[in-house]
């Protein structure tokens, strides 16, 4: 049976080369990096080499601007809570973010609202892109942080990060970006782009789950959120996930090394898939077509519901995801699809396919063959589709 994994924005398979680098740190070099004996010191060296490599690949000025965490959610929580709590005593109590951030950012902002912070949620418009001028207008005297994601996890739209960074730097406001989806897929240079804090995670780039990092530019004041031992220069306690850290650095190195070959190839595949799927009646692409991650396709098909589409794709051997209410466990479809102005009934019928280096043109051929059939089948049993077609006929007359 065909098996196509097309949910790489959710997580990715660990690259065997990455795993190979990690394995010795479980069974041979298992020492605690805080210990002085040889296998401890060797583990410590591995962590520091990883830090240096990641700093280089992000364009950071110093390796010690990289702090290891348990992943994207922790990095986002730490960046925003850490900066806001440190600046609260200085009278800063305002946060600027966008309506379609990942929940790790949105729910963190909501938690800070309870601590007395005010949050401005910027519009992302129909194309799913924040306007830098909106950021500029929203900045106030008491703004503590601007946090705008680098690329959206559902619709893949890439934000004008360098422009936002420039505005924030000029206004003296700290700028954080959740780059979990962008790292390894977009060229990032934290210094050139005036990024003060950046979240990343290993498992979106063929690294292991449970390991991420936060870049914090030197000179930024921030509070700890995990207190304990003196790891990460006293900023983030907890024995280092040495194998995970080694895996993160290796995964990022491979992603950066292969980017120039991979991005044009995936972009071509993605565009062919989008064009093919747009042939389906009453279908639409969600989010800007150009400023978009190379591996992201997010479409809506009117008259059908996303979970039944996802299950049908799974039955045909394709792993995908959907922003329908049924997959979110509430009555509302994804906040991302609503933020770009989709009505509920259309947002319920969404499908996200996300590709990585492991996908091929044959995968696209197969998906283009099965999706129209699945959509037809679900529409044939949909009373909503029946109504849409009846309205269409009535409007013609």
């Amino acid at each position, binding site marked *: 049976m065909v098996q196509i994994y097309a949910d790489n924005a959710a997580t990715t398979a660990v690259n065997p080369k990455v795993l190979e680098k990690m394995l010795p740190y479980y069974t041979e070099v298992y020492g605690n990096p805080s210990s002085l004996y040889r296998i401890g010191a060797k583990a410590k060296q591995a962590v520091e080499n990883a830090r240096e490599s990641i700093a280089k690949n992000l364009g950071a000025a110093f390796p010690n601007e990289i702090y290891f965490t348990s992943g994207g959610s922790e990095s986002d929580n730490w960046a925003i809570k850490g900066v806001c709590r440190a600046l609260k005593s200085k009278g800063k109590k305002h946060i600027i973010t966008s309506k379609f951030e990942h929940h790790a950012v949105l729910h963190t902002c909501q938690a800070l609202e309870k601590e007395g912070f005010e949050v401005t949620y910027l519009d992302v418009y129909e194309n799913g892109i924040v306007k830098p001028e909106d950021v500029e207008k929203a900045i106030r005297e008491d703004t503590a942080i601007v946090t705008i994601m680098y690329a959206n996890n559902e619709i893949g739209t890439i934000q004008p990060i360098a422009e936002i960074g420039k505005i924030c730097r000029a206004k003296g406001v700290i700028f954080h970006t959740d780059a979990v989806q962008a790292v390894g897929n977009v060229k990032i240079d934290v210094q050139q782009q005036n990024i003060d804090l950046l979240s990343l995670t290993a498992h979106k780039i063929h690294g292991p789950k449970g390991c991420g990092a936060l870049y914090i530019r030197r000179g930024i004041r921030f509070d700890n959120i995990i207190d304990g031992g003196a790891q990460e220069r006293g900023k983030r306690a907890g024995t280092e996930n040495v194998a995970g850290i080694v895996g993160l650095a290796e995964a990022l190195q491979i992603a950066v090394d292969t980017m120039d070959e991979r991005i044009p190839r995936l972009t071509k595949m993605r565009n062919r898939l989008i064009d093919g799927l747009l042939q389906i009646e009453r279908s639409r692409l969600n989010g800007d077509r150009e400023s978009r991650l190379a591996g992201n396709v997010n479409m809506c098909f009117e008259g059908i519901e*996303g979970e039944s589409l996802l*299950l049908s794709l799974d039955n045909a051997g394709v792993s995908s995801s959907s922003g329908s209410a049924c997959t979110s466990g509430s009555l509302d479809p994804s906040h991302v699809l609503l933020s770009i102005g989709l009505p509920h009934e259309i947002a319920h019928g969404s499908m996200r396919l996300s590709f990585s280096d492991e996908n091929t043109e044959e995968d696209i051929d197969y998906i283009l063959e099965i999706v129209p059939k699945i959509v037809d089948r679900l529409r044939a049993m949909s009373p909503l589709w029946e109504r849409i077609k009846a309205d269409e006929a009535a409007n013609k007359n």
Partner: protein
Amino acid sequence: MAYSEKVMDHFANPRNVGEIPDASGIGEVGNSKCGDIMKMYIKVEGNVIVDCKFKTFGCGAAIATSSMATELIKGKTIDDALKLTNKAVMEALDGLPPVKVHCSVLAEQAIKAALSDYYRKSGIDPEPIVGRIEECDHEHGCSCESC
């Protein structure tokens, strides 16, 4: 969340999909804003439901519960159909994840809505027999007991 094999079977191979052109009763429940609509058609001869078909816009559980509900009332008397509960639909499907119990309620309501329509067409007030069918309202949330 995982579906039982029976749910997946009724989702992948739904029974009784379609319409009945000369239906004795048609019932529609749910709304597109909430993400599920079920439309049931019944054909009554004497006091027996000789045919039952459905069309559903919704998730896997919505399609599977619709399919199972039609199976459970087809060939049964109206009295039996009136006794159909969402619990019976769920049990026949070997259970549903908690967040999907709503779909089985919708299936029960869809059958009741079709029966109400049948009574109305026969000049009989359905409410004393079938009861009131609460409408799903997106703004105030679903009215079904499980939500």
